[in-house]
C-alpha cells in the first residue's frame, strides 16, 4: 500500500486518518504498526523532504535574498509550501474588527503539514500542567495526569529522537535513561547568557529538540517500542538506519534531506508505509464525515483537489488529525438529522476553548559578543538552551497565573535579508569603509529572547462556522472569536521587562524600551501557531467532546488526535504532547478494534 490517487482507494479500511502532520503521522504509525489498514487523507500535495529540501543553498540564490513574503511567510527556504497565514481560495474569518481580537490561522497544505518546518522544540508537560485548575482555580483540569502520559512521552522521544538532558527542576520532567540523545554544546551567546542569568535566578539549561545529535540505536529501540511485534521492530529498525545524525549545518526550518530531524514525512510515514498497511491520498480535502442511522461514523466525503470531484471513502473508524481548528470545522460541517449541531457536539463544546501560546520578544546587543574570533555557530539549526519557567514559588504574586519559558536567538547565523541592517542606533549612521568595519564588529553580537507562555481557556475565544463564507470547494469556513484575558496581557508585559533586565545583566543595550503595556507586547492570537482546544477532553459527555482516550463521547468510532483535546495549553510547546496523546489513543483504538467495540 503506497501513495495513491483517488481512483486507487480500497473499498473499505479499518481506519481513515485525516491529516498527516504530528498527529496524523503518529496515529497512522501506531495503527499500521499494530496491523490496522489505514487510509490517510491529506489536503495538500505529496512532499518529499529527501528530494525537495534546499540543503546548503545560501540566500543569494533565493528571490529577495530569502526574505519573507505573503507567499512564503517564514522566508523562501522555509519548508512550508502551499501554506501560511492565508491559503489562496481557503479563507477564514474573524468575528471582530478589533485588531486586538484577531485570530491568525497558520496552515500548511502539504504532506507532513507543519512538522516539515516547525521549531522541533519538544518539551514534556509537567504534572502541574495536567491539573492547573486544582492549583489556582482557573481553567480546567485534564481527566488524565502526567503519570498517564509519561510512558508515551518516553516512547515518542525514543521514536522521533530528541536531544536534551535532565535537570530535576520543578514541573520540568526528567526523561528516563535511554529516552534522550545528548544535547549539543551551547553556543557563545548561550553560554554567556547562562553565566550572567544566574544573577537573576534564571536557569539556562539544554533545550529538548527533535534532532538526532547522534544516530538512533536501531538495535535496541525497536524492541523497546514494539515488544512482541517482530514485524514492527524490523520495519522501525530499517527506518532508523535510514536516518543520519545531524551534521551541524542548514536550518531545520527548511526540513532535512538526511532525516536528522523529526518531520512526519521522514520519521512517521516511511515505517508506516513499509508495513504495507498504509495508503496515503494527497490532494484530498475532507468535507464532512458520514454517519449511519445508528449514529456511527461510516466514512468521509472529500474533494479531490486535482479534479474538483467529490468522493466517498469508508472505514470502521475515523480519526481526525487535521489540526485542532480544521478538525472542529469538519465536525461542525458534518450535520445530519441525528446530529443537527454537527458531529460529536451534544455538549455544544465543539469549537469552544481554543487556545494559543502567549508570545512576546525582546532583543538587544551585547558588547562582550562583538568582534569575536571567527567560529561556526550553525549547530543544530535551532536553539541549544532555554530557560524553563522558574517562578513557581511566586505563583499568586505576579499579577498573572501560570508561566512561560524563554527561547533564545543568538549566534553567527547564515546572513540573510536583514543582516547588518538596522545598525544605525549603534553606529550613528555610518556608511562607507566604517560601515564595513561596523558590520563585522556587530555581527553575531545580537541576542533575542522569546517568551512562550500559557494561555488560560476563556469563553470569548472560540470558533464556529461562518454563516456566509465558503472556500473554493464550497465548504463553509471557520469564523474565529478571540480575546486575551488580563492574565495573558500581564504575562506578556512581564516577559518584556524580564528580557530587558536580562539584557542589562549581560552588559547589553537595546534600541527601544520594553513595552509596559501587555496588549502592545503580545502577539495576535494564533501567531505562535500553537492553537489547541476546540474538542476538549473531559470526564463526562456533558463537560467535554472527547473522553480520556481522545474518543468522542457521542460517536464511539470517531477519534480526535490532534491538539483539539487539549484542556489547557501549558507553556511547553504542544507537539510532543500531541504525539504522546495520539500514540496513547492509537493503542486504545487498536484494543477496542480487536475487542469488536468499534
Amino acid at each position, binding site marked *: 500500500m503506497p501513495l495513491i490517487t483517488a481512483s486507487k482507494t480500497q473499498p473499505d479500511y479499518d481506519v481513515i486518518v485525516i491529516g498527516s502532520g504530528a498527529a496524523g503521522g503518529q496515529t497512522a504509525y501506531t495503527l499500521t504498526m499494530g496491523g490496522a489498514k489505514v487510509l490517510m487523507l491529506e489536503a495538500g*500535495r505529496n512532499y518529499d523532504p529527501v528530494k*525537495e529540501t534546499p540543503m546548503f543553498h545560501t540566500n*543569494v540564490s533565493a528571490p529577495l535574498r530569502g526574505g519573507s*513574503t*505573503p507567499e512564503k511567510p517564514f522566508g523562501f527556504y522555509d519548508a512550508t509550501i502551499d501554506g501560511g497565514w492565508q491559503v489562496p481560495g481557503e479563507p477564514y474569518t474573524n468575528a471582530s474588527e478589533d485588531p486586538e481580537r484577531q485570530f491568525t490561522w497558520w496552515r500548511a497544505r502539504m504532506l507532513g503539514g507543519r512538522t516539515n518546518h516547525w521549531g522541533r522544540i519538544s518539551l514534556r508537560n509537567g504534572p502541574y500542567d495536567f491539573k492547573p485548575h486544582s492549583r489556582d482555580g482557573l481553567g480546567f483540569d485534564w481527566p488524565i495526569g502526567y503519570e498517564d502520559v509519561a510512558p508515551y512521552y518516553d516512547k515518542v522521544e525514543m521514536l522521533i529522537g530528541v536531544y536534551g538532558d535532565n535537570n530535576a527542576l520543578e514541573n520540568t520532567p526528567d526523561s528516563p535513561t535511554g529516552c534522550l540523545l545528548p544535547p549539543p554544546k551551547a553556543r557563545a551567546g548561550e553560554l554567556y547568557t547562562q553565566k550572567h542569568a544566574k544573577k537573576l535566578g534564571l536557569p539556562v539549561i539544554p533545550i529538548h529538540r527533535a534532532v538526532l545529535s547522534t544516530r538512533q540505536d536501531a538495535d535496541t529501540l525497536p524492541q523497546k517500542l514494539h515488544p512482541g511485534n517482530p514485524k514492527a521492530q524490523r520495519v522501525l529498525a530499517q527506518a532508523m538506519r535510514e536516518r543520519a545524525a545531524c551534521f551541524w549545518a542548514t536550518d531545520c526550518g527548511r526540513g532535512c534531506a538526511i532525516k536528522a530531524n523529526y518531520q512526519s514525512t521522514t520519521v512517521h510515514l516511511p515505517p508506516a508505509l513499509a508495513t504495507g498497511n498504509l495508503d496515503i491520498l494527497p490532494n484530498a480535502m475532507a468535507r464532512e464525515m458520514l454517519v449511519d442511522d445508528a449514529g456511527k461514523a461510516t466514512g468521509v466525503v472529500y474533494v479531490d483537489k486535482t479534479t474538483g470531484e467529490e468522493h466517498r471513502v469508508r472505514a470502521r473508524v475515523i480519526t481526525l488529525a487535521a489540526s485542532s481548528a480544521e478538525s472542529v470545522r469538519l465536525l461542525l460541517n458534518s450535520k445530519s438529522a441525528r446530529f443537527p449541531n454537527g458531529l460529536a457536539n451534544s455538549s455544544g463544546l465543539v469549537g469552544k476553548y481554543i487556545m494559543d501560546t502567549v508570545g512576546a520578544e525582546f532583543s538587544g546587543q551585547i558588547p562582550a559578543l562583538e568582534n569575536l574570533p571567527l567560529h561556526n555557530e550553525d549547530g543544530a539549526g535551532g536553539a541549544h538552551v532555554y530557560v524553563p519557567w522558574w517562578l513557581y514559588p511566586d505563583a499568586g504574586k505576579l499579577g498573572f497565573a501560570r508561566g512561560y519559558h524563554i527561547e533564545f536567538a543568538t549566534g553567527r547565523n547564515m546572513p540573510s535579508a536583514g543582516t547588518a541592517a538596522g545598525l544605525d542606533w549603534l553606529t550613528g549612521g555610518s556608511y562607507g569603509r566604517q560601515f564595513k568595519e561596523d*558590520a*563585522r564588529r556587530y555581527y553575531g553580537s545580537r541576542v533575542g529572547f522569546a517568551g512562550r507562555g500559557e494561555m488560560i481557556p476563556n469563553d470569548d475565544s472560540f470558533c464556529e462556522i461562518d454563516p456566509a463564507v465558503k472556500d473554493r470547494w464550497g465548504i463553509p469556513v471557520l469564523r474565529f472569536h478571540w480575546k486575551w484575558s488580563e492574565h495573558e496581557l500581564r504575562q506578556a508585559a512581564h516577559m518584556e521587562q524580564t528580557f530587558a533586565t536580562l539584557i542589562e545583566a549581560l552588559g547589553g543595550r537595546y534600541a527601544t524600551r520594553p513595552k509596559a503595556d501587555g496588549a502592545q507586547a503580545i502577539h495576535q492570537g494564533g501567531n505562535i501557531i500553537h492553537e489547541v482546544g476546540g474538542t476538549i477532553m473531559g470526564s463526562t459527555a456533558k463537560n467535554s467532546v472527547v473522553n480520556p482516550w481522545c474518543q468522542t463521547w457521542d460517536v464511539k468510532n470517531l477519534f480526535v488526535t490532534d491538539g483539539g483535546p487539549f484542556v489547557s495549553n501549558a507553556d511547553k510547546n504542544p507537539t510532543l504532547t500531541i504525539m504522546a496523546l495520539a500514540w496513547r489513543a492509537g493503542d486504545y483504538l487498536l484494543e477496542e478494534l480487536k475487542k469488536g467495540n468499534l
Partner: protein
Amino acid sequence: MDRRDAIKWMLTAAASVAVLNRTGFAATSPTADAEGYGTDPDLLKEYRPGDVWPLTFTDAQRRTAVALCDVIIPADSKSPSASALHVPEFIDEWISAPYPDQQKDRPVVIKGLAWLDTEAQKRFQVDFADLVRKQQTLICDDICHVPKAKTEFKQAAQFFQKFRNLTASGFYTTPEGMKDIGYTGNMPLPEFAGPTPEVLRKLGLT
C-alpha cells in the same frame, strides 16, 4: 507612505522638476501586473534578480543606485564593492517585487534616488553618479542618520536608511560578503565543538 506624505515628499524633493521628470516618474508606478513566485516555488533552483518578476529601474535610476551602493559599501582590503557583487540588481529586484512590503519600499527608493540627483544638481550641477567621492560624501553626511538629519533632510535620511539596509542585505548574503562578515558555517561537520577556547577566554567563560 500615504498620499499626503507622498505629496509632501514631492514638494520637499522637487527642487528641479526637470530632473524629476528625467529620473523620477518613469518607474514610480508599481509593477501592478507582475506575479510573485507563488506558494509552491522550486526551492532547489538558483534564482537571479529578474528571473521571477521583471526588473524596473530606468538606466538613470540604476546608475544612481550603483553609485550610492558603492558609497555605502566601497571596496576595501577584505572584499569588493557592493556594485561589483551585483547588489544594485538585488535592490532592483526588491523594489520591483509584487509584494506589499516591497511595494511600500518602492516609492521611498525611487523618490530617494531622484532626490539624490536633484541635490547633486543643486550643489554641484551634475548627477550624483558623476560626483567625486568627496562630493558624494558631503551629501550623504547630511542624510546618513535619521535622528541627526536636519528637518529638510529627514525624508532623504529615511530613504538613505532604507537603502543602506538593502545594500547590506544584498552584500552580506553573497559568498564574498558572508566571508567578509565572518560567517564560517554551512559546512557539514562530524561534531559540533561549541565555541573555541579563544572565544571562551575572551568571554570570561573558562
